[in-house]
């Protein structure tokens, strides 16, 4: 039998989740690195979430919450490339064919000395990424205090007063009392890092051009033509060094999506965040009467006060409907 029923509208949950995803709180920050040998790439990412007025969509069958078209806005999305260009040398041909018995070999002439490095940053903070999440709304119980429930309430109260004295407000996080938590547990994700994938090929081409410019940009055209006639296309040379195949966009997408696993990082952070920050947190026992005003002299104030009146919640259930979520609580001590 339920003793307490609470209904929260979809719009209400929308507001709560929006607050949870506020950029001041929820951020994606990481610095994954990929080092396949010939080059290394390190990402410096810092993103926040943005969304339209309607973020939440309740699904009744099955009971799930959809966070639709949650934009990932990149405050920083730098890919720092470091490339070790291998030596590019000619030589070894026969200097004296037919001169006398043995062939004297030409010494090597190297156009690039050993391991010249190129460092370039690809700034991708202008791209827009998007994630959609289908999540279950699940009830959990956080046991923050297992003994002396009365002292737990006093501790919680004093901690709140300390916060107020410091000019801040509650709740105490993590709470000093036990709580029933209703959290979004992501079930499936759909993430799209590039919404303009066809422009990525241009970016990679520019990356190649820029590296070539760094390597041989000061040379006149004839020298570059000679270099390419001897050593092959510099673009092909770089493509091999960077392991770029035919599809430029696919290469960068693979680096971001697979090698650096940026989608995985976003999903892991979002997953942890939604689980760690419940949509509803209900104190147990639940205060039906708060601390009383001071009972001493009306002029001097001060103690004593009456402690809050709280009732234990034995069970909490939720029922997700198309327009609201209904929480039903049973009062009683958990056996």
């Amino acid at each position: 039998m339920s003793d307490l029923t609470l209904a929260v509208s979809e719009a209400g949950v929308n507001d709560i989740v929006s607050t949870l995803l506020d950029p001041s709180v929820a951020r994606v920050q990481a610095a994954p690195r990929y080092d396949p040998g010939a080059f290394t790439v390190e990402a410096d990412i810092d993103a926040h979430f943005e969304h339209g007025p309607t973020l939440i969509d309740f699904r009744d069958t099955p009971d799930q919450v959809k966070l639709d078209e949650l934009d990932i806005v990149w405050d920083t999305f730098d890919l720092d490339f470091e490339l070790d260009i291998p030596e590019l040398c000619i030589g070894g041909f026969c200097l004296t064919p037919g001169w006398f018995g043995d062939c004297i070999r030409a010494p090597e002439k190297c156009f690039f000395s050993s391991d010249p490095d190129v460092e370039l940053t690809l700034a991708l903070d202008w791209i827009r990424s998007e994630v959609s999440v289908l999540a279950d709304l699940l009830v959990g119980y956080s046991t923050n205090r297992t003994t002396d429930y009365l002292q737990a309430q006093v501790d919680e109260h004093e901690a709140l007063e300390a916060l107020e004295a410091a000019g801040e407000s509650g709740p105490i996080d993590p709470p000093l009392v036990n709580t029933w938590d209703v959290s979004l547990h992501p079930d499936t994700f759909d993430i799209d890092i590039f919404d303009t994938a066809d422009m990525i090929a241009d970016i990679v081409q520019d990356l190649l051009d820029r590296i070539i410019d760094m390597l041989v940009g000061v040379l006149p055209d004839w020298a570059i033509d000679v270099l390419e006639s001897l050593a092959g296309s510099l673009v092909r040379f770089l493509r091999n060094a960077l392991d770029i195949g035919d599809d430029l966009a696919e290469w960068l997408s693979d680096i971001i999506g697979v090698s650096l696993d940026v989608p995985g990082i976003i999903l892991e952070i979002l997953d942890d965040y939604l689980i760690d920050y419940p949509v509803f947190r209900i104190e147990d026992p639940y205060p039906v009467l708060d601390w009383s005003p001071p009972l001493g002299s009306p002029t001097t104030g001060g103690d004593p006060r009456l402690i809050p009146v709280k009732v234990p919640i034995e069970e909490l259930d939720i029922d997700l409907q198309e327009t609201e979520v209904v929480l039903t609580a049973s009062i009683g001590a958990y056996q």
Partner: protein
Amino acid sequence: MSTSRLNYDLFEATGTDSAELNVLGTLIHRFPDEGDYMIEVRQGDAVVGTRLLAVSDDYHTLQATYDLSAFGDTTECDCGPTCSCEDDFDCIREDGVAVFHVGSGPGGYAVTVDPVGERRERREFDSDELVEDDVFSALLLRPGSYVAKNTLGDASAELTVNYPDGQSGAANQDAIVVTVTDDGFEPVEIEMDPGRGVSFIVETEARIVVKLDEPHEKTTDDTDRKRPPQHSDRIDITSAIPFDPSGRTPAEIESKVESINTATELRAVLLAERRNDNRKTVVETLRSRIRDVSKLRR
């Protein structure tokens, strides 16, 4: 930040001189007699370093190669995998050769080799005056017409280095052989691709100087390679879009949108628009533009 190290000297040198060796030149001297020899390298009047070379049938190494730009008291020769050299001297077999070249830098090196011990009366090798069996090889990269002269005589030859028209195998081909005799160069006209060596086999006293007479430039426009206009080491949105409306006036944006002709440009402007507060202007202008185009198509 780029720290690439390109060997610019290879492209800056436009000629070479057997008596003032630079990155384009290589000297080869054959040692027919056993013995110990002292190699001395000079740059102008300064002695760069000396090195002892032992020539004997006890050794098997054919070729000892010296990079004069790295020549000094601690020089180690590049004697190949069969080298039997020891720390303080190098060694080659009888009839082996010493190869002198310049790996990098401005060059201007001269080399002498003198016997040590009992046979000091005769200089073995002097780059100022090559003698029979010495070889001077040039590796020319700059397309153009060159003149090769023996400045100890009056012989000359014409060399033409073709402008490259694609990838060539010149760097792997044997050097072209030119003999230098009392009668002059043979052949007297040489044509080759850049990067292919030309070796002057000396049969008379010689100092070979090769100079660029007239450079050859590209005759057609290269439309395949577009070089970036700047040397920034940061690639941002300006690489992807032709136009960023940030801070532009509505009139400027309208003017720019008028010139949009491709879907990529349209998408790029829309993308750029997101990053600033000109959305209304851009979208309205685009709609207007689309309406105009629709009317024209009707």
